[in-house]
């Protein structure tokens, strides 16, 4: 990890309250794994509001241009600040952070990526990496509506197959992405599975997968302060032993964990 001031190459609105920011950083290109994130200062040098940095997954890297991107949704003060930046401005961030996803040699050839909402952001980087490594990738993405239409355009640029669901039926099939998973759960046994999405999606997936004894990994979120494992602030409960639990930090022990180990309360 390194503290970096990188030039913003572009910052585009690609949907309602949905932005893609591209930042120049040879270091990030060289050292990042899918699933890792950066912690960005979201206030100008002279102000302290918001105080804390904000974590964003690495969404894409383009080694030819030495740039990486984040895909982000407008939530509060921090993302509002980001959305106002423009090309030529400087992004102050630290990264890459977290464990990320390493691909072993002898691993499976078939990968299923399940993304819900903005959870598709880090999975895009993973899909790109896998497809470059010659793996078969099936990307299952679920949205509320058609706000991620331009994201589909990006997926089309990768050599992967995908399916999109939207709750209101305005993008892809109507329904929840978990509907697809339920339908094809038996198929999916032969896949390595990576998920990223809201807690509610994870709860449903845990149920489906435990019934079918399917393994899966997932990327988690928690409010962060340090982002580098020193404050013990960003913990979640995970199974430990038979009935026990243990707190693990999302920022350093994660954000990638075995989905079946997560305890939701």
């Amino acid at each position, binding site marked *: 990890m390194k503290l970096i001031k990188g030039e913003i190459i572009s910052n585009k609105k690609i949907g309602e309250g949905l932005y893609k920011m591209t930042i120049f950083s040879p270091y990030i290109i060289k050292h990042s794994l899918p699933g890792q994130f950066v912690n960005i200062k979201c206030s100008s040098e002279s102000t*302290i509001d918001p*105080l804390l940095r904000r974590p964003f997954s690495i969404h894409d890297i383009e080694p030819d241009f030495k740039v990486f991107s984040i895909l982000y949704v407008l939530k509060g003060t921090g993302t509002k600040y980001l959305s106002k930046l423009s090309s030529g401005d400087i992004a102050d961030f630290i990264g890459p952070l977290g464990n990320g996803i390493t691909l072993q040699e002898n691993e499976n050839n078939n990968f299923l990526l399940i993304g819900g909402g903005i959870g598709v952001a880090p999975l895009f980087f993973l899909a790109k990496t896998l497809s470059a490594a010659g793996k078969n990738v099936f990307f299952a993405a679920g949205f509320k509506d058609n706000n991620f239409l331009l994201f589909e355009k990006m997926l089309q640029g990768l050599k992967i197959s995908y399916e999109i669901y939207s709750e209101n039926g305005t993008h892809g099939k109507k329904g929840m992405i978990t509907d697809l998973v339920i339908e094809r759960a038996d198929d999916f046994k032969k896949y390595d599975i990576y998920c990223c999405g809201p807690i509610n999606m994870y709860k449903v997936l845990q149920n489906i997968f435990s019934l079918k004894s399917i393994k899966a990994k997932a990327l988690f979120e928690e*409010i962060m302060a340090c982002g580098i*494992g020193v404050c013990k602030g*960003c913990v979640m409960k995970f199974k430990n032993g038979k009935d026990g639990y243990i*707190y693990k930090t999302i920022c350093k022990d994660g954000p990638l964990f075995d989905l079946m180990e997560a305890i939701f309360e």
Partner: protein
Amino acid sequence: MNSNTGKGLSVKLGTIELKNPVIMCSGTFSSGIEYNDLYDVSMLGAVTTKSFSLVPREGNKPPRLCETPAGLLNSIGLENEGIDFFINEHLPVVKRSGFTIILSILGADAAEFTNLATKIRKIEDDLLAVELNLSCPNVEKGGITLGSIPDEVENVTAAVRKILNIPVIVKLSPNNNNLAELASRAKNGGAEAISLINTIIGMAIDINTFKPKLGNIIGGLSGPAIKPVAVAKIYNLYKEKILPIIGMGGISDWKDAIEFMLAGASAIGLGTVNFVDYNAGKNILEGIASYMGSKNILNITDIIGKVKVR
């Protein structure tokens, strides 16, 4: 760092000698190992470790963090891997890296502190000092913290002092009004310095879910928001001339550091700022050095407590 840095930066708190007054606060810097990837942590006056207890503590139920206006509310609940983990895992690394270490220890009563001190005796040569975190709620005394009970402050300090040969620092909480009394009792117990301030009790509620934003309901407020409160507490305690003070609470740049020293801090602690400016230690140290240059201050000790009140 410019070539002058280092000159005139050393400070003394009792028998504690620091090459410069920049100390990392407990709980916001772990043992410094992570930050050493970013800058040479051995340049700092000292690193105060996360507070370690006799046995590991799992800490509080999440969520444990919440941002407030210019502040951070936390309810980590003193999660730590236990003193043995520090001794076996962190100490070898920090020794190799040349960090100056103040070990923060945490116990529920004088007996636990005695046990901790006994464990530490064998490594005390590797430590600059120990800092006593007295913020554990005392169950026998109805849940109030050890650090708010004058007798306990003196007893615990004396218990640790009896066992260890290195200086003892007592950390006090701003949630107490009798800081002068508590500091005197720490002194009676044999402490050489006071760390001030720990976090201020605070709370936040989510108006959508009606739930507290922290799993523990109540938390501790840190960050720039609390800076004026910290400065006032330090100024007031300094006037009593009881013990030298390590001042902390909301410092975010070298200007704040100077402000704390003018108020009476002999050294300054950096906490929350480490999450905002990962290079805070280095930046603030350099900032102090160049301020001294520009103001022709030969020894940083010359400004301690020098606020002009008339």
